[in-house]
């Protein structure tokens, strides 16, 4: 295929990708952009050109070992539903925009630590980016059969592609100053590329399996005849098992800590629930990809068995060998997609780290603290843009100046091992309160040095063919210092070996230093917040990790420098509204300080934001536990205040009702006596009737007053119960005697056949008062004809239940609970006002409750109501 044609296709392809990104950025609210599938597919940025070519190469030369790179992720991803959710919550809650920010914040906004993590990431990833450029360049040469690579960069297609990618990443990656804003355009484009690379790879896989061979069995049979096949397809005993184990562990760490993975999984996450889809869809994606890796590798081994063909390029060489150029082109585009999405996301993630955790905190803070917002934000964006270009160009020159002729796999794995140095501080920080920043720094440092010694130096020596005895005989000829067999450990292959030792020392150092040196209070507070994230997340700004106070004016000034007048105003207004703070307040409390710090973190990183804010704040030490206590107390105070208000309101209502209830009989008394006084012509009968009424209304008043006093005494506990052992049967029969006149008058039968004997401790007068109240209510509401009231008891080992039933029309369902309220009756009388104060049931309830019993009402089928109360038997 001519290079012109291929270049044209690449340009068209890139144009489509750019357009998709542009469209997604414009329609960032669309459902096509915001869904769990796009999110999951964007995570497949994990599968780079390395998967496309390197895995096949590894599978062809070393068998199933390539699987470990995918096994790790497949094993760890189901735990994300808890683990990644926690990480995402912490990151969103604190506006974290990168891995470096995450670690730096956890260890108390440590500026140096953030910078260290950034440097480690850049060192690990830049060669990895070179690798992708190399893959593009090599495969381009294969597909165009251009075997001479031009040494002059302006003739090199890869250079232009690199520049285009830098433009793409810089344009779509720096739309917002706040790096925690999601990059919808880039993510959607990456998701699309993930589909393309998988589909094209499967197409090649199917082509090899079913066109070049007669299905999987055929490939297997032919491949199994090759020398060394058996050996390749086994794990290789306990030693091999160890290698497998550590390789899987390594890839487990990589899927979470590679900067590009952190970017797509955490920073670009729109909704937590998308994780649910990821837990099954992403492993499925990886599985689909890998099924055909094996077949393509075996197929290549069979077809090219006696030829010098680089196994890394089987994916392209198999179709080319059969003159299927179009298929080879699909393969090329798939690999190209894989490479460019990796390059774009990686540079985006690294540029954020470089700007927020290295360049701004170490170089630009002073300048920014004086500058205007427009200039500042433009400058921040420019730093990121320059970082993106520099990264890609450095990666390009790295690929140009080092002969990277080792297989694609090894360079990728070296990246993994270096990134893995962040694991102890990252996961330790997430689950261990004591983990300290000093421990993290030394751990990462030692781990990095060891991986340099055991992997990078010998690897460089190998790949650049430098003549030295270092690898075979160890440093100064000491056997124990052989880089591939450190301390005589011989069971590992180089990568798991380096991983094992570097992480071993990294972890030990982190552990020992953390245990022996206590971190600063600020660090301990963040530790508390990260480890116990669920407890603190809901507190938002209330969980301030430091106590500081400042003038709002100063804070506003700092915010304005980065957010501009309008956004600052809006953010502060929202904050005031949320916490119900007066806008005119002069003094910023800890919450506002904390809120502002978070607000800036997205734009300039956590360390810088802390430095800026603290320049206008007087800081005081406080532990998060203290903060919690303070919060608890204010909450309690608020609650009790509310309770008081509620009680006041109830008291007011009660007094109102009492006044009303007293006025009613007084009105009658006043009116009737006025008539009697003024009018001499009142006849004898009327006079008598009036006087009787006056008398009964007076009695009503005194009854009411007694009841109110009673109720108050009982409610406030001023009245002591006169507890003694009594027979409930005799108390009930005394009560029945008291209402018998009333019953006879209404011609109502009282049935007490089902009353059992039981002895209990209670105040007999009071309980009698309750029973009389219930009985007279029952009599009042029984049917006029054949009215019947029944009293019965039920006794078990710990309580007596006493039932009083009538056969009247029952109680409205809504009112079953309300009837125990004070004056309930007064507001809801029936037409004929029943005699009573409206306090009877309220008093009964009070009496029963002070005996530790319960009282309630229910309706009976078909007619009647039942009131039940209980008395405990062992009432002391």
């Amino acid at each position, binding site marked *: 295929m001519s290079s012109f044609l291929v270049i044209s296709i690449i340009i068209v392809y890139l144009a489509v990708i750019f357009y998709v990104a542009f469209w997604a950025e414009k329609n960032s609210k669309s459902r096509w952009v915001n869904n769990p599938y796009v999110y999951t597919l964007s995570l497949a940025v994990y599968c780079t050109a390395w998967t496309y070519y390197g895995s096949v190469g590894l599978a062809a030369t070393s068998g199933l070992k390539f699987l470990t790179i995918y096994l790790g992720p497949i094993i760890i991803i189901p735990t994300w539903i808890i683990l990644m959710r926690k990480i995402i919550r912490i990151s969103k809650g604190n506006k974290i925009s990168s891995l470096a920010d995450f670690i730096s914040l956890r260890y108390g906004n440590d500026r140096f630590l953030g910078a260290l993590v950034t440097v480690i990431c850049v060192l690990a990833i830049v060669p990895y980016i070179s690798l992708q450029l190399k893959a593009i360049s090599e495969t381009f040469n294969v597909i165009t059969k251009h075997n001479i690579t031009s040494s002059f960069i302006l003739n090199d297609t890869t250079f232009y592609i690199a520049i285009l990618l830098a433009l793409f990443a810089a344009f779509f990656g720096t739309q917002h100053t706040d790096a925690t804003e999601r990059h919808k355009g880039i993510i959607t484009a990456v998701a699309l590329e993930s589909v393309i690379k998988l589909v094209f790879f499967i197409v090649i896989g199917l082509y090899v399996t079913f066109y070049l061979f007669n299905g999987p069995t055929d490939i297997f049979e032919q491949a199994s005849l090759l020398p060394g096949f058996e050996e390749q397809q086994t794990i290789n005993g306990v030693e091999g098992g160890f290698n497998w184990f550590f390789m899987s562990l390594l890839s487990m760490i990589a899927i979470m800590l590679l900067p590009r993975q952190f970017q797509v999984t955490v920073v670009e996450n729109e909704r937590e629930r998308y994780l649910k889809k990821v837990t099954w869809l992403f492993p499925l994606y990886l599985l689909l990809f890998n099924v055909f890796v094996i077949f393509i590798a075996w197929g290549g081994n069979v077809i090219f068995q006696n030829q010098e063909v680089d196994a890394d390029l089987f994916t392209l060489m198999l179709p080319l060998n059969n003159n299927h150029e179009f298929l080879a082109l699909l393969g090329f585009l798939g690999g190209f997609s894989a490479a460019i999405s990796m390059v774009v996301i990686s540079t985006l993630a690294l540029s954020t780290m470089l700007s927020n955790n290295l360049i701004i905190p170490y170089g630009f803070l002073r300048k920014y603290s004086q500058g205007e917002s427009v200039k500042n934000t433009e400058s921040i964006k420019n730093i990121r843009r320059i970082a993106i270009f520099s990264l890609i160009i450095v990666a390009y020159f790295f690929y140009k100046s080092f002969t990277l002729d080792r297989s694609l796999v090894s360079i990728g794995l070296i990246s993994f091992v270096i990134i893995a140095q962040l694991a102890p501080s990252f996961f330790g920080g997430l689950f261990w309160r004591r983990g300290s920043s000093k421990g993290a720094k030394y751990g990462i440092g030692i781990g990095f040095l060891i991986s340099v010694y055991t992997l990078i130096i010998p690897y460089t020596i190998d790949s650049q063919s430098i003549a030295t005895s270092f690898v075979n005989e160890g440093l100064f000829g000491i056997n124990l210092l052989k880089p591939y067999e450190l301390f005589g450990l011989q069971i590992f292959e180089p990568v798991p070996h380096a991983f094992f030792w570097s992480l071993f020392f990294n972890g030990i150092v982190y552990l020992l230093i953390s245990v022996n040196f206590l971190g600063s209070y600020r660090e301990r507070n963040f530790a508390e917040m990260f480890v116990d994230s669920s407890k603190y997340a809901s507190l938002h700004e209330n969980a301030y990790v430091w106590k500081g106070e400042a003038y709002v004016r100063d804070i506003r000034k700092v915010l304005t420098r980065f957010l501009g007048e309008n956004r600052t105003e809006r953010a502060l207004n929202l904050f005031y509204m949320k916490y119900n703070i007066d806008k005119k307040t002069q003094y910023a409390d800890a919450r506002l300080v904390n809120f502002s710090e978070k607000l800036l973190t997205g734009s300039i990183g956590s360390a810088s934001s802390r430095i800026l804010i603290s320049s206008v704040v007087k800081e005081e030490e406080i532990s998060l536990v203290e903060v919690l206590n303070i919060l608890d107390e204010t909450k309690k105070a608020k609650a009790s205040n509310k309770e008081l208000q509620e009680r006041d309101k109830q008291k007011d209502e009660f007094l109102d009702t009492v*006044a*009303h209830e007293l*006025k*009613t*009989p*007084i*009105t*009658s*008394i*006043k*009116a*009737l006596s*006025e*008539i009697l006084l*003024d*009018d001499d012509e009142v006849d004898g009968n*009327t006079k008598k*009737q*009036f006087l009787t*009424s006056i008398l*009964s*209304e007076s009695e009503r008043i005194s009854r009411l007053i007694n009841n109110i006093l009673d109720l108050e005494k009982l409610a406030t506990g001023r009245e002591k119960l006169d507890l003694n052992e009594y027979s409930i049967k005799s108390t009930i029969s005394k009560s029945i005697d008291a209402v018998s006149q009333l019953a006879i008058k209404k011609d109502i039968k009282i049935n007490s056949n089902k009353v059992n004997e039981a002895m209990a401790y209670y105040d007999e007068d009071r309980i009698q008062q309750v029973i009389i109240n219930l009985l007279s209510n029952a009599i009042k509401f029984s049917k006029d004809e054949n009215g019947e009231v029944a009293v019965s008891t039920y006794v078990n080992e710990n309580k007596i239940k006493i039932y009083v039933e009538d056969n009247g029309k029952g109680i409205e369902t809504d009112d079953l609970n309300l009837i125990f309220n004070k004056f309930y009756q007064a*507001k*809801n*009388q*029936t*037409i004929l*006002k029943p005699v009573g104060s409206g306090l009877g049931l309220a008093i009964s309830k009070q009496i029963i409750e002070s005996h530790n019993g319960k009282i309630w009402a229910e309706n009976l089928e078909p007619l009647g109501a039942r009131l039940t109360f209980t008395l405990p038997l062992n009432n002391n």
Partner: protein
Amino acid sequence: MRKILIVDDEPNIVMSLEYIFKKEKFEVFIARDGAEALGIVESEIPDIVLLDIMMPNVDGYQVLNHLKSNENLSDIKVIFLSAKNKASDIELGLQLGADKYISKPFSTKKLVKEVKELLNKK
């Protein structure tokens, strides 16, 4: 003969009012709650209604509302007679269109005077 409707659920208050207005040569009608009052108002069209507020089912406000929203009944004078005597209660009652608001306990002499004054206004 002028017609007066007494609406109250307290039998003794009704008894006293019935006595004094009969003595003043009124034709007295009695309703013991709002619902009953609405019936009597329609059939008898009294000149004046003495209206309690806190009554079961249909309360005094509702009765007043019915009167004021009905063309045939809107001329009927209404005096609220209520134990609710906070300033806000009184204001509400007058706003709804009552002609007078008299707090309980009231003086019978004064009440008669007010009723007469109100009816003579026309």
